[in-house]
């Protein structure tokens, strides 16, 4: 991404929405219902509020330093060595995220639709396309993501609407049979994936054209709110269709789509969910790899900001393969239990440290 690349505030809002919705719309509901039971939508609402607070922090820092990304204003505020210290968990988590997003695509395909195909094939080709996308630059990414995300949202809305005959509202009760603990556990999970991850967008905000900054704040909050509402809608849909069985499902939207059977013609539409997951995860992985590339480039103050794309992609590809060789239980534990704490240590705490220092500095 060249320094002169610029996108509008609307495009940045779309990129942000793609990143937040990404793989979460298919991956989140099942495990979340497993943690929070019928109160999963409450956990999502609580996690969304923490996301709003984090976004407020990110936008405050962007308002103070509109031309600088997270690494650059860290350098300015806390110095070189502290930034390097904060960057270690930051960059490590970006590696984990990027490899994990693509790994989820592979796991989805080998679990549901193409069980005999080796996972390495999915990982290889998705990483190849992601690397080429990131090499083409943020402007190209921002322009190309609009239509795919509209088609993803359209597919999800269509499936939610077509599943209407299968909805049983009585499945939503009882709401909190085991008290507040399952809600808290669900909030912990949903906070880690996807809301704590939004701090990454601080690496891309400087690309917003200065003249078009006016609507940026409104657009970003709207994107986050719409993302939250979609996740809640998908979770409620899953609970109303499957009831107590929901917690056993890994890819709940896929299973909801499989129940659609209308007028004989409208059936077997779960492939649309497969397409949606791959498209949305590809966009999220591209944004994540772009942020990772930028973080490393800015950390080492490199002039060529595209030279590291392929080596970093290869690292993420190998990491995906090594993660799944540890077994799916290890990976599930990594995402469910450790991911939120890791996101806090890698993204949230560094942001809070830098924002706190900024509060005490009078001039940027």
């Amino acid at each position, binding site marked *: 991404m060249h320094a002169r690349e610029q996108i509008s505030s609307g495009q940045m809002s779309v990129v942000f929405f793609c990143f937040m919705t990404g793989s979460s719309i298919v991956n989140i509901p099942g495990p979340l219902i497993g943690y929070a039971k019928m109160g999963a939508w409450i956990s999502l609402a609580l996690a969304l509020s923490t996301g709003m607070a984090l976004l407020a922090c990110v936008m405050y820092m962007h308002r103070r330093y509109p031309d600088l990304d997270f690494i650059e204003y860290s350098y300015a505020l806390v110095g070189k060595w502290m930034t390097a210290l904060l960057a270690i968990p930051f960059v490590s988590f970006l590696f984990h995220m990027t490899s994990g997003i693509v790994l989820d695509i592979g796991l989805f395909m080998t679990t549901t639709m193409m069980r005999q195909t080796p996972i390495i094939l999915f990982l290889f080709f998705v990483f190849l396309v992601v690397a080429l996308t990131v090499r083409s630059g943020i402007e190209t990414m921002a322009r190309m993501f609009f239509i795919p995300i509209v088609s993803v949202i359209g597919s999800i809305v269509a499936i939610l609407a077509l599943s209407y005959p299968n909805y049983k509202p009585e499945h939503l009760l009882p709401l909190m049979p085991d008290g507040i603990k*399952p809600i808290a556990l669900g909030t912990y999970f949903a906070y880690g994936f996807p809301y704590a991850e939004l701090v990454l967008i601080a690496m891309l905000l400087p690309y917003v054209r200065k003249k078009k900054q006016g609507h940026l704040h409104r657009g970003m909050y709207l994107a986050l709110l719409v993302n939250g509402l979609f996740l809640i809608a998908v979770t409620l849909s899953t609970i109303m269709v499957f009831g107590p069985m929901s917690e056993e499902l890994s890819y709940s939207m896929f299973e909801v789509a499989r129940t659609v059977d209308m007028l004989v013609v409208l059936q077997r539409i779960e492939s649309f969910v497969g397409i949606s997951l791959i498209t949305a995860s590809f966009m999220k992985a591209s944004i994540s790899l772009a942020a990772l590339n930028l973080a490393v480039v800015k950390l080492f103050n490199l002039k060529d900001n595209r030279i590291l794309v392929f080596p970093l992609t290869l*690292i993420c590809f190998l990491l995906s393969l090594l993660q799944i060789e540890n077994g799916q239980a290890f990976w599930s534990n990594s995402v469910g239990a450790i991911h939120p704490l890791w996101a806090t240590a890698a993204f949230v705490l560094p942001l809070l440290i830098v924002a706190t220092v900024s509060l005490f500095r009078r001039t940027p």
Partner: protein
Amino acid sequence: MAGKILLLLIVYAVIGLADLARLRKLHSREMAVYSAALLLTVYLGIDFAWDLKWPFIEEAAFSVLGKPAEFLVKILTVPS
């Protein structure tokens, strides 16, 4: 194992071809960072090809955050 090594060699060759034009214009700092990234891929590649289970960031995260995460999940889980 042979298949994995062949895959890695093909990937390295493709990356080398794709980056060749840019590599010629790199300054020393950029070359150093690029080499470090490639060394990391060699480490992971050897781990992948020979299934050595060498430590990397996931294991580091587990060792640092594993116990606190387990504790948090345990106190928030209602016994069934």
